[in-house]
């Protein structure tokens, strides 16, 4: 989506944001059913996570296989502070962001010196460590059976405890996150990030401090995950380590890949499809791991740029074929 700015692009962008807001509002009005609203809420939470991971992975080219850990840190920070210590949920959310940001910084400094598989392994290791801590630190986390009694968020005396109210909160947040992420991608920092992905050497030769940039984006995407984690804890009112394990990190990566690397809108798509699928197909449940693996393989082979980009590519290819003659003669040598 990076590319031409200009007046037309801004107008189109505004239209798209308005369209998203309208669709979300409409869907909610049509779907009075609480089950579907809850499903949409989880899609929203996953979207926040996937957009963050996509900034890091799709745009920046830095693989994280431990993203569920940051989601978990946010969720448990909110859960423990509110359920055990009675802290105001909004303050707990902010505390979660701070803790998560510091954790990402401390992990990022050594890990981001690594490249490719090594970075993937380091983040994978971090994810596993957090998962073990959540299980073993029973006095605080409640261990494998989880932490219950997490209060709902409230806004000006209004308790956000029904799917409909949560829906408004979550999707307003998703909307804001999508907007600032699209802004980011098309900003000075976003360009440097995309540049780093294509050629780190060239980016450095132009004065981009790539080490610092990687760390910044790593922390930034961890903050998205923490925010999603806090929302998750207050939506379910219960958290357990099983939601934050390795498998969930892989699911997030699958969502990024399915939706499309380096695509903000693809993130929404990837999160939506892979959150709904297991719910809609009952069979899916027993073979979840296999099906996710299968999707990952099929997309990588046939739609390497993801669902959204893949379809756009097909469309653009047809357009080029139509205008092929003109396209050819406008070459350099004439």
């Amino acid at each position, binding site marked *: 989506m990076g*590319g031409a700015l200009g007046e037309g692009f801004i107008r189109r962008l505004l239209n798209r944001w308005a369209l998203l807001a309208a669709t979300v509002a409409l869907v909610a009005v049509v779907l009075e059913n609480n089950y579907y609203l809850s499903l949409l809420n989880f899609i929203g939470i996953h979207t926040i996570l996937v957009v963050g991971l996509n900034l890091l992975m799709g745009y920046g080219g830095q693989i994280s296989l431990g993203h569920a850990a940051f989601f978990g840190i946010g969720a448990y920070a909110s859960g423990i502070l509110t359920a055990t210590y009675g802290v105001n949920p909004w303050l707990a959310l902010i505390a979660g962001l701070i803790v998560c940001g510091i954790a990402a910084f401390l992990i990022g400094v050594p890990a981001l010196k690594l490249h490719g598989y090594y970075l993937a392994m380091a983040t994978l290791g971090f994810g596993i460590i957090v998962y073990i801590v959540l299980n073993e630190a029973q006095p605080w986390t409640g261990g494998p059976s989880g932490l219950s009694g997490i209060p709902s968020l409230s806004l000006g005396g209004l308790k956000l405890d029904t799917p409909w109210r949560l829906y408004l909160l979550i999707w307003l947040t998703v909307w804001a996150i999508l907007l600032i992420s699209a802004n980011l991608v098309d*900003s000075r920092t976003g*360009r440097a990030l*995309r540049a780093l992905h*294509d050629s780190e050497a*060239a980016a*450095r*030769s*132009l004065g981009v401090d790539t080490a610092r940039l990687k760390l910044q984006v790593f922390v930034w995407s961890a903050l998205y995950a923490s925010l999603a984690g806090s929302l998750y804890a207050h939506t379910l009112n219960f958290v357990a380590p099983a939601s934050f394990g390795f498998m969930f990190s892989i699911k997030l990566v699958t969502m990024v890949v399915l939706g499309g690397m380096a695509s903000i809108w693809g993130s929404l798509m990837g999160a939506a499809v892979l959150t709904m699928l297991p719910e809609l197909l009952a069979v899916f449940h027993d073979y979840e791991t296999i099906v996710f693996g299968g999707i990952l393989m099929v997309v990588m082979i046939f739609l390497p740029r993801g669902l959204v980009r893949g379809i756009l590519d097909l469309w653009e290819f047809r357009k080029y074929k139509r205008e092929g003659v003109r396209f050819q003669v406008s070459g*350099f040598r004439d």
Partner: protein
Amino acid sequence: MILDLQEVSLAFGGVQALNNVSLSVPEGAVKAIIGPNGAGKTTLFNLVSGFLQPQEGRIIFKGEEIQGQPAHLLAAQGIGRTFQLVQLFDHMTVLENVMVGCHRRGHAGLLSGALRLPWTFSEEKAIRQWAWEALEFVGLTDRAHQFAAVLPLGLKRLLEIARALAAQPTILLLDEPASGLDAMETERLRDMILSLKDMGITILLVEHDMSLTMEVAEEIAVLNYGRLIADGPPRAVQKNPEVIAAYLGTDWQA
């Protein structure tokens, strides 16, 4: 002298890539470095631009020692470069590629960019304008909104120059800019190097195309197996027997 290498050495394992090389580049000049493959030319570029550190010796740029400083800081101080194998940002448009070149001329951070704070608008506009001017200089404005990956090689090399130029270098290192170009494109490149010089930019050039090198360079340094075997005006270098034996071949003078 804008750039001064003093007794610089670097070995990779047992291979002496550069052996006690001293070399200076006068301000505003076009200086070429020639030599057979593996002579250490690209290594020298990587040392000057901060991608490698010398094991011995000093590199002095604008009167200050710069060896040991990372590439992005040297870029900020005015050392620009292109790459032997073109390194473009393939998934970005031609204009965006050059806008990355303006990175150091802007200030917007991650947060102000994400929130699109009002003051970032004027900065974005300025960056866009600077990038456009650099594209005008190399004549690529008609390709501004295409992805860099789809350009033919000749235009890719021009785009790399535009991108480096957008960073406002005082010295520009061009690593084999003519390789892969046809005669017409090479001519265009020659004109461009001369107008860069007219703009006051010092050029350090690694090039195998001898006629281009002889035409644009005021000084030529010759490397062979990591050693500097000649350094001076083209005429003198051309007649140096060691150069003829090592690199140019005996029939070259004809």
